[in-house]
């Protein structure tokens, strides 16, 4: 009990004293998560909108693929991305393996189905009278699309926040594609795993507190977004 309370005390000191290593790791995590979420939102949201609003051949198959992708274990995504980014893989020449960009690409693969599926759900849950209203106002197809997306904005924003929450707390992909290199690709989750295995509970706990704080902020954002007035 004494050990635990002492570890928690030291962890708080690390956070409050602005320990450079802690903040380097936090910054790397947030930086990678931000870019992977931005990239996944810019692909996933239009893809989700397309699936929700248009009828085309192969739509059920695409929906099935998107749904299945949500359930993929992160180590499997990491494995595939590793094969692609490794020196012998098709993108090996780009030298992205064990870089923050490499992790961001892996997390992009993880987050895109989340953004897409939640966008599909957001649009499909819109009031069925919306389409009629757009038509009777005389909206063009593009105006109708814009008005639809505007109506789904709160749920779509929640999808982005959820995707961010998923990537910031991910460990398997970050470990496999980043290599957990100190000061370069070490993220909060990989650092926690490493420091715990070394018996350095203080740093692990300190990062755990920050990660919990990030989770709290994300959940707060989801709460306000879903209330529709952010």
């Amino acid at each position: 009990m004494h050990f635990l309370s002492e570890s928690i005390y030291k962890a708080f000191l690390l956070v409050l004293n602005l320990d450079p290593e802690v903040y380097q790791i936090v910054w790397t995590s947030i930086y990678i998560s931000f870019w992977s979420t931005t990239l996944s939102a810019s692909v996933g949201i239009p893809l989700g909108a397309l699936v929700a609003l248009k009828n085309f051949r192969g739509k059920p198959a695409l929906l099935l693929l998107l749904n299945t992708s949500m359930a993929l274990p992160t180590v499997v995504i990491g494995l595939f991305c590793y094969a692609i980014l490794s020196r012998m893989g098709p993108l090996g020449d780009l030298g992205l393996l064990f870089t923050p960009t490499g992790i961001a690409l892996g997390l992009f693969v993880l987050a895109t189905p989340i953004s897409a599926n939640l966008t599909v759900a957001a649009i499909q849950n819109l009031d069925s009278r919306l389409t009629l209203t757009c038509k009777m106002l005389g909206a063009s197809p593009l105006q109708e699309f814009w008005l639809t997306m505007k109506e789904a904005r709160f749920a779509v924003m929640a999808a982005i926040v959820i995707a961010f929450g998923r990537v910031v707390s991910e460990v398997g992909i970050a470990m496999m594609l980043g290599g957990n290199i100190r000061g370069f690709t070490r993220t909060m989750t990989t650092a926690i795993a490493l420091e715990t295995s070394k018996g350095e509970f203080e740093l692990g706990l300190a990062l755990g507190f920050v990660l919990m704080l990030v989770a709290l902020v994300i959940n707060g954002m989801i709460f306000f977004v879903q209330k529709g007035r952010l």
Partner: protein
Amino acid sequence: MTPLAYSIKDLMFSYSARPDLFVDTLDIPAGDVVALVGPNGSGKTTFLHLLAFILSPQQGSLSLLGHDFQNSEAMTFRRRIGLLTQNPYLFKSSVLENVMVGLRVRKFPRRLIEKIAKEALSRVGMDGFEDRWAGSLSGGEAQRVALARTLALNPDVFLFDEPANHLDSESVRRTEQLILDLNRCEKKTVIFATHDLTLAEELADTVIHIFEGHVIPVAPFNLFRGQILEDGAIFDSGAIRFHVSNTVQNGSSILIDPRKISFSTNEEFQGLTNVFKGKIISLSLSKNRIKLGVLAGESFELHREFRQDCKDLRIGSEIWLHVTPESITII
């Protein structure tokens, strides 16, 4: 010659294999107030959506102010129409934004949009509500905002689907006055759907009766299904038998105009045909018109101007109905 707002010929639309709406020939003069009257599910809304070019006819022709409708030009046609639906949708934004959205869609000059929207809100008694979140409005307030959104568009033709829905009596009166003003002051064509025959007759120049997707010549009330017996002289609904004019040999339903059913609280109809004894099951008075629901084998609806003899009518009291064979339409 009066220009035509709509000219319709052999118009057909169906959601499934069976036609849901068929209109043989119908011309609606520009500047008229027209009421579409029919029971729920008769095809009024489908007809309005066709007139608003939301739905496209599957057969026949439809023209608006002399221009034949082409599917490829649906958006252009829609922009000449203002449709207010029965249960309108408001966007997740402020009341003012909701009125402005249509103006933006139809590309009104930017500098005028806010002014027009505020004027429209004022016209429906919603000034002061501009910054309210649309989701926080009551049903009646939402209906008025949607009405303002339609008015702001200043279309050639206004289409209203059950405009008095969700409204209190003051708002109903205001809406009725608005329909008349749009027509009399702004010379707009107004077409509205209602199941209230009294309202239709009060406001409209022309009343079009719709029943089971067809335009019919009589009000679609007192519908009884059954069969014709004895060479067309009797119609048997199962519960009661009606003597009918024996000019039609076949038909599976009859309609009786609610204004043409006579009633009496004593036995003055003795010796006449089609006299049915029953009990009053509902009674309402609106604008000097009385509506009675009577159970006399079948359930009848009667409409009549309020007179002194109506004072004695009570729910549950006995009543005799008389239906002349000529007032029965076989369909």
